[in-house]
């Protein structure tokens, strides 16, 4: 049994696994490595790590399944987009392949983390009840929907941070995914600026600039920590709103994402 290989594998899915190992098993486990007891102790210890990491609270499971719903949506969207002939121009293929890769990884991670508690993949309607009828044939529509999904993802993860405080390791995972969605959003918004000839679309969100109003409602907020930042450091209102991304409640996100979900 290669204990370090196993620790490494766990470290990949649970950044603090070895910290936990060290803490939980200092007396009972590490000193027995090399003895015949190790093979018995190992599975028990790892089972307890998995439980601690992934099943600490019902809230965490609910949040992870909520995240999984959105990741399923994104993953399937990019799978279809990347596979569609004559949709994404050659110059932009690398970008969407990379984004698609991450969404697939996020789904895989969440499914693994939730185990039997993972929800099933819903059936999606990317035409959004007809509003985006040409989403996989018209690059403009595709980029618009992509930027909308990514900015929604950023706002959705951000909205769950406080719900995960009791599960610090899961909170950290959520933050690590959250910033990846923000990287995606930034680069897709820049593509959208060119493709839709809208220079107001920057990598960051100015006011509530974005194609789908419901997704950007509240992004123009100027008040942080209870203080109106208007005029802070003599910077423009635009810069103040760009400097902060805003969270969205689960209800708001599900209202936005709902029409994408058929069943």
């Amino acid at each position, binding site marked *: 049994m290669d204990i370090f290989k196993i*620790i490494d594998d766990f*470290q*990949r*899915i649970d*950044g603090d696994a*070895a910290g936990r190992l*060290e803490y939980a098993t*200092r*007396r009972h486990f*590490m*000193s027995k490595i090399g003895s015949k007891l190790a093979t018995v102790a190992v599975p028990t210890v790892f089972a307890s790590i998995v439980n601690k990491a992934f099943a600490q609270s019902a809230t965490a499971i609910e949040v992870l399944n909520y995240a999984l719903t959105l990741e399923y949506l994104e993953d399937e969207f990019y799978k279809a987009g990347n596979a569609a002939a004559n949709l994404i121009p050659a110059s932009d293929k*690398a*970008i969407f392949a*990379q*984004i698609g*890769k*991450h*969404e*697939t990884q*996020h789904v*895989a*991670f969440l499914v693994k983390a939730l185990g039997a508690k993972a929800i099933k993949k819903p059936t999606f309607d990317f035409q959004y009840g007809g509003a985006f009828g040409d989403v996989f044939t018209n690059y403009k529509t595709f980029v618009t929907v992509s930027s909308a999904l990514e900015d929604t993802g*950023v706002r959705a993860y*951000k909205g769950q*941070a406080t719900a995960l*405080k009791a599960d610090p390791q899961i*909170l*950290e*995972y959520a*933050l*690590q*995914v959250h*910033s*990846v*969605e*923000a*990287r*995606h*959003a*930034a*680069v897709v918004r*820049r593509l959208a600026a060119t493709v839709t000839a809208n220079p107001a679309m*920057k*990598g*960051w969100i100015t006011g509530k600039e974005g194609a789908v109003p419901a997704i950007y409602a509240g992004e123009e907020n100027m008040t*942080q*920590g209870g*203080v109106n*930042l208007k005029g*802070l*450091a003599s*910077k*423009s209102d635009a*810069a*103040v709103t*760009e*400097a*902060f*991304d805003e*969270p969205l409640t689960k209800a708001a996100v599900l209202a936005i994402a709902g029409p994408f979900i058929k069943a």
Partner: protein
Amino acid sequence: MNRLMKSKNNSGKEEGEITSVVNRRLFLRSAGLATSLGTIVIAAACNDDDPDPMIPGTGDTVDLGSGDVGVLNYAYALEQLEAAFYTQVIATPYSGMTDAEKTILTDIRDHEIIHRDFFKAALGDKAIKGLTPNFAAIDFTKRDAVLGAAKLFEDTGVAAYNGAGKLIKDDGYLVLAGKIVSVEARHAAVIRDLINPKSVDFAGDDIINGDGFDKAVAPADILAAVKGYVKDTITGANVGK
């Protein structure tokens, strides 16, 4: 009691050897960023005649403090560095800076100044002093040097906020950190796209792991990584504690 002590010592030795291997592996994995930053700082601080990588400090020691104040001061320290860096970038534009680049870098400068001043105001009399940056290692006349440093600062900022999130106790502060970290991630992606347009680098495999995760790095490792860019000595042993 003697027997217990003895057995503890015996296992302690073995335990120490094993955990040091584990820790080294973890460290190498999680400190990829710190290592790359450290290498650049050291490389830049050295010249052929002077192999000493030490950069002289101001002699001031700045303690970030403890608990949430410590985390906020930690963020304030990093935002101070970023704001100072981009202020310099715009004050002395590198050769060949396009209008589009200038617009982007000016936007980022403004965001970082807003972050800095916001933290300063939020901390009030608990705020650390204004730090003295040391950008001697950065050649502000060269596009590659400036964008390369910007990339490091932004990726570091993202990893720092991601690693500090779980240390924050107050809901309001946690949400605020979240509101800022995604903007830093947007900066990182745009800077990376300027360096390598239309490539995968905006969220490259050098920074995003096989689970599709950005980095999360603990304050001690971040402070070690940015040490060369500050003349003051920053101590953050109690950040979040």
